[in-house]
Structure formats: structure tokens, C-alpha cells
């Protein structure tokens, strides 16, 4: 790897901030310290909350009890399942369209150049700003939310896939040509595997955006779902329920991201092994 490509690769890596935090090896001492800070923070909260007696700051135990009652009950099916279902639909549409179109756009240079200004602009538009348009055109049903999520998550996936396909190392393409691969074969056997890490990065960003969009679209126009639930809880001063909802969102976000990272390490293990060796 030349100096420049390495620097660009390093920069790409730094750009991809949805990854796990760099961990310089775990030690027992370190783990004990991590856990004890969390415990300490929770204990401090409990203590302060009990002292304050404020409606706004319920104690940790109170939140935990409410959390248990709310989410280990049919409420989970009524509020969380619809959110997850909409998100899954929107995200899958965005993922499928984004990767397919992205690889094609990136592979054919003139298409990339043609679409570049439009893509740059659409990517710069905050995806939540189109929710009012969605409501206007499609009402406040499931379809609106699914399409809004698909639209928002589509751009990062598309652009990352296109970048990945566009920046395939020259020598790999040349090798493919020497071996007489047709264009379709080159696309399938060289371009897509080379672009996979970048595609994965786009998919991860898309996931984070889909998560934001489901919450916001439910806050603005919905009659159920997690976003609706926590905003409604705040408006009706059901404060422990509101905190419980935020905690559930945190847990779901954590699980989804972990699941993604796990899947990625399965699919892309070969790639990271390779880059580690060249380093």
C-alpha cells in the first residue's frame, strides 16, 4: 500500500465512527474499573433522586420497576413490535436498492459523474425534513414510515456502495481483464467483494439513520410505536414510563448494532484478516 492509499484508508476508518471503540486489549483490572464506574453512577443517581424527591428525576429502582411492568407485558407487542417491523421493512428496502444501485453507479464511471451533484445534494438534506412531505402524501400509516425510513437510509448506503465500487484497486481490475472475465463476472467476482467493507460501513450508517427516523416519524405522526410512546409519556407526565422507553430504545440500539457488528465480522472476517497482515 502506498503512503497515500494508506492515509486514505486510515481516514475512511476514522470516518466510520459507528464501529466499536478502539480497545487496547482487556485486563481484569480494567473490567472491574468499568463495571464499578457504572455501578457508582447508578448508585449516585439513586441517592440524588431519593434526596431530591423531584417528579422529573425518578430513582433508578423506580425506573427499573416501571420498565419491567411496561415492557414485559403486552405493551411490548403494542408499541415496540410495530416500530421494529416498520424499521425492518424500510431498512431492507433501502439496503437492497442502495447496494444494487450504488455498485452499478460506482462501477460505471460516467454514471457516477452524471449523478454526483444530485446525490451530493440529496445526501446533504436532513432526512427527517421529508417526514412532513411523507405525511402529506401518504398519511400517518405504516407505509409513510416505511418509505421515509427507506428514503433516509438509502443515501448513505448508496453513496458508500458507489464509493466502494469506484475505488477498487486498479491492479485487481487489470488482473480480471487479463484472465478474460466478462463485465458481469468482473462485477460479481471482483468489484463487489472489493467494495464489501465500504458497503458494510454504509449499511451501518444506514441502520443508525433508520433508527433515528423511526423514532422521529412516530413522534410526529403516529398512534403507536416507541417514538409515540415516549413523547406521549412526557406529555402526560408519566415520567418513569418515559425513562423506561428511553432505556428500551438504548437497549434496542445496542442490540441492533451488536448484531450488525457480529454479522459483519462473520462476513468480512477475511478482509480484516488481510488488512491486518499488510499493516
Amino acid at each position, binding site marked *: 500500500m502506498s503512503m497515500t492509499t494508506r*492515509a486514505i484508508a486510515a481516514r475512511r476508518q476514522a*470516518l466510520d465512527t459507528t464501529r466499536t*471503540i478502539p480497545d487496547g486489549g482487556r485486563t481484569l483490572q480494567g473490567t472491574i474499573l468499568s463495571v464499578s464506574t457504572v455501578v457508582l*453512577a447508578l448508585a449516585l443517581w439513586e441517592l440524588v433522586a431519593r434526596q431530591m424527591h423531584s417528579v422529573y428525576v425518578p430513582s433508578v429502582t423506580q425506573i427499573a420497576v416501571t420498565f419491567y411492568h411496561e415492557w414485559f407485558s403486552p405493551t411490548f407487542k403494542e408499541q415496540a413490535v410495530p416500530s421494529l417491523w416498520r424499521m425492518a421493512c424500510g431498512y431492507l428496502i433501502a439496503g437492497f436498492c442502495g447496494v444494487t444501485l450504488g455498485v452499478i453507479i460506482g462501477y460505471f464511471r460516467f454514471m457516477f459523474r452524471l449523478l454526483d451533484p444530485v446525490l451530493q445534494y440529496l445526501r446533504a438534506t*436532513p432526512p427527517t425534513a421529508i417526514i412532513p412531505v411523507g405525511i402529506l402524501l401518504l398519511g400517518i400509516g405504516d407505509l409513510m414510515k416505511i418509505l421515509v425510513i427507506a428514503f433516509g437510509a438509502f443515501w448513505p448506503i448508496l453513496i458508500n456502495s458507489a*464509493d466502494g465500487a469506484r475505488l477498487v484497486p486498479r491492479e485487481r481490475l487489470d488482473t480480471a481483464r487479463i484472465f478474460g472475465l466478462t463485465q458481469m463476472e468482473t462485477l460479481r467476482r471482483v468489484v463487489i467483494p472489493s467494495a464489501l467493507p465500504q458497503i458494510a460501513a454504509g449499511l451501518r450508517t444506514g441502520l443508525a439513520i433508520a433508527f433515528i427516523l423511526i423514532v422521529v416519524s412516530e413522534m410526529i405522526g403516529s398512534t403507536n410505536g416507541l417514538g409515540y410512546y415516549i413523547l406521549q409519556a412526557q406529555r402526560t407526565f408519566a415520567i418513569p414510563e418515559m425513562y423506561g422507553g428511553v432505556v428500551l430504545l*438504548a437497549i434496542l440500539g445496542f442490540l441492533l448494532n451488536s448484531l450488525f457488528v457480529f454479522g459483519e465480522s462473520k462476513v468480512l472476517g477475511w478482509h480484516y484478516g488481510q488488512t491486518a497482515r499488510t499493516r
Partner: protein
Amino acid sequence: MARQKLLQINVPGISFAIGCIILFEIAARAGWLTSYVPPPSVIFAALFQGLIDGEISSQIGATLQAYFIGLGLATCLAVLLGILMGTYRPVFDAFKMIVEFMRPVPSVAMIPLAILFLGLGAQMRVAVITYAAFWPLLISTLYGVRGIDPLALDVARNFGIQGAEALWRVTLPSALTGIMTGFRVSATIALVVTVTTELVAGNSGIGFYISQMEQANRLPPMYAAIILTGILGFLLNAIFFQLDRRIVFWTPAAQDKPA
């Protein structure tokens, strides 16, 4: 030089964009679309009008103010914590788990919480923006600090530069590339979150204006404001890209295309 710049203009790309707008115009005028989608000429006229008579332009100020305060606060806090976490192992261990748990919380989930404590004003928005912009900056600062050449720190130590001075003179400049990349990611996220909080629960700003126009069924200004958010995002992105290149001018990657 000027000639070279002229040659860099993406003529087919821009023509394609203009072509799309014209096609849209024809489709809307011919009535192929629903009445909920006005033709682009009407939208652009509304945008121009709103910018001149101050109806839209007065909202830009409120949006940008919350945006820059939130982003600035997040930058200071994240860089400080990132450098400390990256340099001192115990600090890293102490905060690691909290960071891992807090980071995946979608920032918008914090909106109700922020409303509870700070009301509907600009303070609430700044708090949510700061929260959202904090995480990417923290992570990329950490990467930046971790990527420092150990030799640089050893050399500094040989010259008697240690402690806070080493942080300031070796760690911070070395981590600057990482910090700047994180800053650009955060800058994008911050704009999304600014518009979102205004949309959900604001009392001023472009997002607030969009939701008001939607409720008043005044569609051209609503679309105009949405287009404006895109223009704003595009401009901010371009400005920060240039800033990035000027600040960390020494990296070869500074010549990289806008990511």
C-alpha cells in the same frame, strides 16, 4: 489556475440535475403528479420570496445559532474526554462501559427528556444537538490518539516534554486528523438533529417553519424550506471540507475527495 478550476466543473452532472428539475416542472404542470407537489418554479419562487421578505431567512439565524453552539460544545467536550481517555488507561477503563451504553441511544430519544428539563426553547435544542454530535467526535478522537506514533511521544519525553505539555504539543496535533474527520461527521449529524428537534418540538428555526407550513397547508413555502435545509447542509459540508483541508493540510488524505 482559473482555467483548471473551470475544467473541473462537472458539466454532465449539473446538466443532469437541471434536466431533472425541468422534467419535474413539466410533470407537475401537466398534472401527472398529485396536487400535493407544486412545480419547482413555484417552490423556488416561494423560496426567493421567503428569503427576501424575511419569513424564511429569519428562521435560518435561529437554526444556525443552535447548530453552532451545540456543535462547538460537543467538540470541546469530546476532544477533551477523547484525549484523556486515549492517553490514560484508567480513564479509558472507567468511561468505556458508559460510553458503550450511551452511544447507541438514538439522540432523538433524548428530545422528550430534554423538553422535561429545559422546556421548548433553544437550550433544549442545544442540549440534544450537543449530545448527538458528541459521540462521533469522541470515537474519532480516540482513534486519533491511539494512532499516534509512539516514537513521537518518546522523542518528546527525551526533550523533557511531559504531562499536560505533551498532551498539548504532541498528542493534540497528532490526533488532529482524526478529530477533524469526526468533526465533519458530527457536523452532518448536528444539522439533522437541529432540524429534527425543531420539527418535533421547537418554537423557532427552519424545522419549526416546515411543520407550521405543513399544518397551515401552505405547501410552496414548506417545500422551499425543505430545499433550503439541503442547501444549508451542502454549504456547511463544503465549508467544513475546506476547513479540514486547511487545518490538517499535511496529510496526503487532505487531497481526498469530499467523503
